[in-house]
């Protein structure tokens, strides 16, 4: 079953400088019990995508086309606010980059974890027991006492684990994790993603994992979506994307990661140019102005080329891998 199916989603914001198209024709699916990664640089629309799913777009933004189908039944773009509220936190939950933003500094973590369960129909004692159980699951030492402590009494890594515990408390169908490890150190980052994977398997939820850290995506995710300037330029199995990227942007982005450089390089690769002004999108392919493989036909909107089942790239030249072309 598909937990989340986004099809043809476009989101527009009305700004002083004109209409800004933040998302254009975004389609992808999050299958049951899978972790789907979203990669892309600042301004690619990752946050807009999350907000659109959660029904939390700013007042000047609206869904101009497409639909978001949750669990095959509910269409989130047209769902009434009451039903949406019932979904958030219970069926769809979130973990953000800054754990302090998710925790109330003046309430003990136990109290907050009990509050999260307000719709569960459990008794107070059951709720507290559940809070302790979740803290143990995220390896907070001495969980029975920890429920009485306040957020500032925990380290950054622990706070993020508590935020994860709270997000998974109600055993949601979908967890949206927005850069959950970016603020953490290397050793904690690894520990956190390992924990996330473990809990995801145990609870059996799906995860939409947003990150700009390619290493974390490669390690954690089953499927990957590459976004650029509000469009999904490529998507596929994690191995397809990392081993055989077909969209020139995806290819360049992977090349830029210093971790992909074999041996010592003093001059690191970059992507020349900047993302286009989303109020005045260029005609045809969105990446054309920065693309070294651009051709005459790229001024026309590129098709979605299916490279292999489940692996597609929105590019005219996607059928020919870059290396093969270079060898010609």
């Amino acid at each position, binding site marked *: 079953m598909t937990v989340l199916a986004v099809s043809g989603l476009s989101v527009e914001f009305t700004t002083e400088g004109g209409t800004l198209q933040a998302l254009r024709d975004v389609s992808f699916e999050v299958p049951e019990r899978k972790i789907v990664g979203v990669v892309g*640089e*600042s301004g690619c629309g990752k946050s807009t995508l999350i907000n659109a799913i959660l029904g939390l777009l700013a007042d000047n933004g609206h869904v101009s086309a497409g639909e978001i189908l949750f669990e095959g039944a509910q269409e989130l773009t047209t769902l009434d606010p009451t039903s949406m509220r019932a979904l958030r936190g219970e069926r769809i939950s979130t973990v953000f980059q800054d754990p302090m933003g998710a925790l109330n500094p003046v309430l003990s973590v136990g109290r907050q974890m009990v509050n999260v369960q307000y719709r569960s129909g459990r008794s107070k004692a059951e709720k507290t027991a559940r809070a302790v159980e979740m803290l143990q699951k995220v390896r907070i030492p001495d969980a029975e006492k920890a429920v009485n402590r306040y957020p500032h009494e925990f*380290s*950054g*890594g*622990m706070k993020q684990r508590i935020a994860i515990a709270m997000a998974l408390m109600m055993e949601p169908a979908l967890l949206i994790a927005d850069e959950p490890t970016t603020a953490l*150190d*290397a*050793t*904690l*980052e*690894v*520990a956190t*993603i*390992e924990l996330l994977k473990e809990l995801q398997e145990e609870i059996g939820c799906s995860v939409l994992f947003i990150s*700009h*850290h*390619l*290493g*974390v*995506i*490669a*390690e954690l995710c089953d499927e990957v979506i590459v976004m650029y300037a509000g469009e999904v330029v490529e998507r596929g199995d*994690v*191995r397809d994307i*990392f*081993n055989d990227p077909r969209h020139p942007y995806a290819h*360049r*982005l*992977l090349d*830029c*990661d*210093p*971790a*992909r*450089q074999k041996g*010592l*390089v*003093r*001059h*690191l*690769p*970059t*992507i020349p140019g*900047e993302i286009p002004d989303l109020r005045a999108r260029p005609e045809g392919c969105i990446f054309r102005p920065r693309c070294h493989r651009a051709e005459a036909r790229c001024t026309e909107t590129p098709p979605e080329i299916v490279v292999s089942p489940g692996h597609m790239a929105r590019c005219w030249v996607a059928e020919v891998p870059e290396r093969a072309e270079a060898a010609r």
Partner: protein
Amino acid sequence: MTEIVLTVEDVEVTFPTGTLIDGLRGRPRSIKGVAGVSFSVARGETFALVGESGSGKTTLARAINGLQPVSAGHIEFEGKAVEGQDRAGLKAMRRRMSMMFQDPVGSLSPRLNVGQLIAEPFRIHGVEGRDLRGEVVRLLNLVGLSNDFAERYPHQLSGGQARRVGVARSIALDPTLIIADEPTAGLDVSVQGEVLNLLNDLRERLGLSMVIITHNLHVVHHVADRVAVMYLGRFVETGPTGEVFRDPRHPYTAALLSANPEPDPDKAHDRISLPAEVPSLLNRPPGCEFHTRCPWAREDCRTRVPRPEPLGNRMISCHYPLEAGAKPPERTPA
């Protein structure tokens, strides 16, 4: 003999903490953010400081720049002691040793435009007789920004552009040493490369020395000649970057390197997982301070304090340095 630009010897930085009552109860009244660190940087060399948050990297950088008084040890820049300098002395020194702070946009005043921001070092240091407008244009071009950027304000810049402006400011007065605190933090991967290339390029063209602080190990690999790994305010391993990365000898370095997620889904993960959290500076473990998390720790590591010892080209603080490719021992349940 290479010329040494910066020497740091046994530097300690302490911060007061707790109340008098805490003191009477036998709790510490001060913590050591930097606890005895020594290294030197030669002309044209890039030295990287790596470590996790709270390991003292930024405090050490601030001490080198004279922004943070040292409680013990000695820092020498171009043959002069940094500690004990008065305001005028420090000001003169900071002309030759510039600092790039962490947040690229936050370190620029929102009320000045780029032209004014780049001219600011000249005004602060009373450098006269130079054509300021000409200097601004020269510096903008040097960091790869077009002339019209001079009219823009920080909020109109992207992270990468703001970082370039920061670089232009730091090289304005032809320094010998640049201290860059997380120069790529918060930047996208494609932009990160640009900034590092720029720094590398300027270093070669202007013969600069650099101290780079970062927690991104992949970045260190490509820019630094030598690297020091910090843990709880001390260097656990110092040495040539390539060597340290190929074959880490301190268990903490090995763990840190293995914790670096690789962008390759099929990469086998021979990961050294570190148990427990980083100990608090208020309560430093006895013996080797890493023993609480070290998978290789032996009995005497709990009591005997290791001193930095030379090992080939490196300095290592460990009683039992690792052999190449050592795997962590099977953990016995505690």
